[in-house]
Every structure is written in C-alpha cells, then in structure tokens.
C-alpha cells in the first residue's frame, strides 16, 4: 500500500518502486542500487547529459533518454539493461578510448581511474575503431598541478566544478566537434591564469588522470569526487 501520499509509482527493470517526484531517474536508480554507468555526472554540479552512458529505455518514448537529466514521472516503465543499451555503452566506451591517447600502463591514475573502471564494467577487451591519436599538450605550468589533455575525455566536470562550486570559472571549452579542448583563461598556460585559485577541486572532479598533482607517482593518487557534493551541501548550510 502506498503510505506516502506524495510518492509516485514507477517500474525500473521489472522492479516496482515508489519514489519521490522531482527526482531524476539516475537518483532513483542510485538509491535503489540499480547500476547505471555514468561519466559526466558528478553529484553536486549540474548534469548536462553529455556522455550518453546513462541512456535508458522508457516505454512509450521512442528516443533513448539520459537518466541524469530526465525526471521520473508517474507510471514510467524504465529499462536500464537491455541488449541495445549494453551494446551502446560498449561503443561509447570504445569511442572514449579511441578519441585521445589513453595508455593505462603509464598513467598516474592507473587503478584509480573511472574510465578504466568503465572499461572493465562493459567488458572491453579490445577497441574496434582506429585510434585518432590527436596531438595533445601536457600543461605543467601550474606550480602544483598538471593538466594532461591526452587523458581528457571532455566530461567537463572540472569546468562545472570551477564555475559552479568554486565560482572562479578558470576552465572552459574551446573550439567544437572533435577539436574541443578544455582551456584556462585565453587558452593560456594554467600557471599564468588570472582566475585560478589553485583550490584543486577540478583535480578531485576529474574522473581520469587528466588533472593530477605534481610530485606523486603511480599508485599515490587519491581522488575524492564525493567531496564536491559535501562542499556544496556545507555551503548551502552556511555553517
């Protein structure tokens, strides 16, 4: 029996759930331990639906919708694990790896990388598409941190954290299409930035080894993406 008047019934993967309206499908799934793969989602900053990993099928909707940006509605029937979705998740992962120069063996984030975890989860054994091998820079001009564009997957988590949480807006995205790059100020070296506060939040937000602190070696990297949401909550409370 529905004991809360303000909840709505939905079905996810044949599981009947009563959920609060106003939540996104992703939030509901995370609360109910239904696995949804994500890359650009970071709790605490706005969702943009860019990585397309969290796509779900909704009965009666002929398009696949991203779970992170779609709100639940009453009597929604959602599927998160059909063959089609699994196939597309695999292709997306392959494209992530083929886009830039990801070499786990020499990466500082080896073992602590969300992209690497994603590869394991979708069962990636090889990449069927040709690697694009773009020419990417490694920006070491900042006194403490390094930005390695080779390992960037353009999730723009750093951009959103810097803008929404820190409020500095040091990062943004330049160009378009496959030539997009994360930039600091006028595409100048990070170390010369006039807006960066060196707070290091982008480092914690980054899911891969694209932003990392200097003076550490493989295995020493500690990233804490959860701290972003904690910060947001604390700032709301104004303790």
């Amino acid at each position: 029996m529905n004991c809360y008047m303000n909840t709505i019934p939905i079905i996810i993967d044949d599981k009947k759930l009563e959920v609060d309206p106003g939540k996104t499908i992703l939030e509901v799934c995370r609360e109910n331990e239904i696995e949804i793969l994500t890359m650009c989602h970071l709790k605490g900053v706005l969702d943009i639906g860019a990585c397309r990993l969290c796509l779900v099928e909704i009965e009666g909707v002929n398009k696949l919708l991203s779970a992170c940006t779609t709100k639940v509605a009453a009597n929604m029937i959602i599927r998160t694990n059909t063959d089609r979705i699994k196939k597309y998740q695999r292709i997306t992962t392959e494209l992530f790896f083929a886009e830039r120069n990801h070499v786990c063996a020499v990466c500082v984030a080896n073992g602590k990388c969300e992209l690497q975890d994603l590869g394991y989860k979708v069962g990636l054994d090889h990449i069927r598409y040709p690697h694009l091998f773009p020419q990417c820079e490694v920006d070491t001009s900042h006194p403490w941190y390094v930005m390695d564009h080779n390992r960037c997957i353009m999730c723009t988590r750093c951009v959103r954290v810097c803008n929404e949480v820190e409020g500095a807006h040091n990062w943004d995205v330049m160009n378009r299409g496959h030539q997009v790059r994360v930039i600091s100020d006028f595409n100048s070296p990070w170390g010369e930035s006039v807006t960066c506060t060196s707070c290091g939040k982008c480092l914690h937000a980054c899911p891969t080894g694209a932003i990392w602190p200097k003076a550490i070696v493989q295995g020493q990297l500690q990233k804490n993406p959860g701290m972003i949401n904690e910060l947001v909550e604390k700032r709301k409370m104004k303790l």
Partner: protein
Amino acid sequence: MDFELPLFLFNKNAGEFYMKSDTAVPVKDMPKTDPRMKLIAAKLKKESFKPDALIEILHTAQNAYGYLPKEVLSYITKALHLPPSRVYSTVTFYHFFSLKSKGEHTCLVCTGTACYVKGAQAILNEIERGLGLKAGQVTADNKLGVQVARCIGACGLAPAVVLDDEVQAKVAPEEIVQKINAKIGTL
C-alpha cells in the same frame, strides 16, 4: 603511503604570480584613441554592458578589425565582467570569429552542397596550384587569405566565390586565379 594534496596551502609567491599574469593580458596598453575601439565602446554602451550581448559585441569587433586581437578580447572581457575562458570559448565556437588576421583581401570559396556538386573542389585545387594557398591560409605578405564557407545561400549561382565582398557567380576553375589577380592588382 598516500600523498596528501596541498589543497588549502597559501602560496607565498601567489601575489607575485598574479602580477605577472596581469602583464600577460595587457589591458592598459589599449589604444583608447583608436576609432575602432570607440566603435566597440559605443556598442558596449548601447547594449548596457549586458553579458548576454557578448556575441553582438564580438560581431562589432570582428567587423571593425577583421579579426579579434587579444587586446580587444580582454577589453571586452573586462567590460562585460565575464571570465576570460568564457569569452574565449564563445569566440572559438563560432565560425565567424577569427583570432588571426584573415588577410587584406579575402577569397571565400563556397563549399555548400550545390557548389560542391558543381565543382567547388576544382576551384580550390586551382587556387592551390596557381597561388600555393590552401583553404584557411594567408599569403606571407598578408595580402590574400583563402577561406571556405558552408553555403552562402547563392545556390542558384553555383559554384560561387566571394572576392572581398563581391559575389562571383558560376566561376570556372580556370578563371579563378585570373580573377584574384585582377582584384589584387587593381586595389
């Protein structure tokens, strides 16, 4: 042993570091007497310094200078109180804005579908053969720049080439170099 991140440390050299950055973006060097700058200033005033008018103001600047010099960009950035990266990301997103000078004279080859079907590639090949310029390149003396456009909407006149601001209709590949030379010679 895990490495603790030096997150909230205050860097003693930070002050010095920021001063260095200010010279990297030289706002004070702006020639305020330049009539083109006055044009931009007037536009900024007209749009009452609203950040959402960024693209309109960039249009004005692009038209005045032919490209967007860094000094002008930082002037606009300061005037609108926008983060520099936000301005730069907008500038690089749109085809219209250019960060480099496009040359005194421009030769714009339309590569829209209609022009492509009718041989825009042959024109580009001919320009490369005759003048040694590929699309997007500028001659060493900055006299002529060759660009391509995704449809200028003159499909009835395909293949079309725009020399400076004049549309040349139904251009035959063999006459393009001659037309360009005539243009540069006379001006």
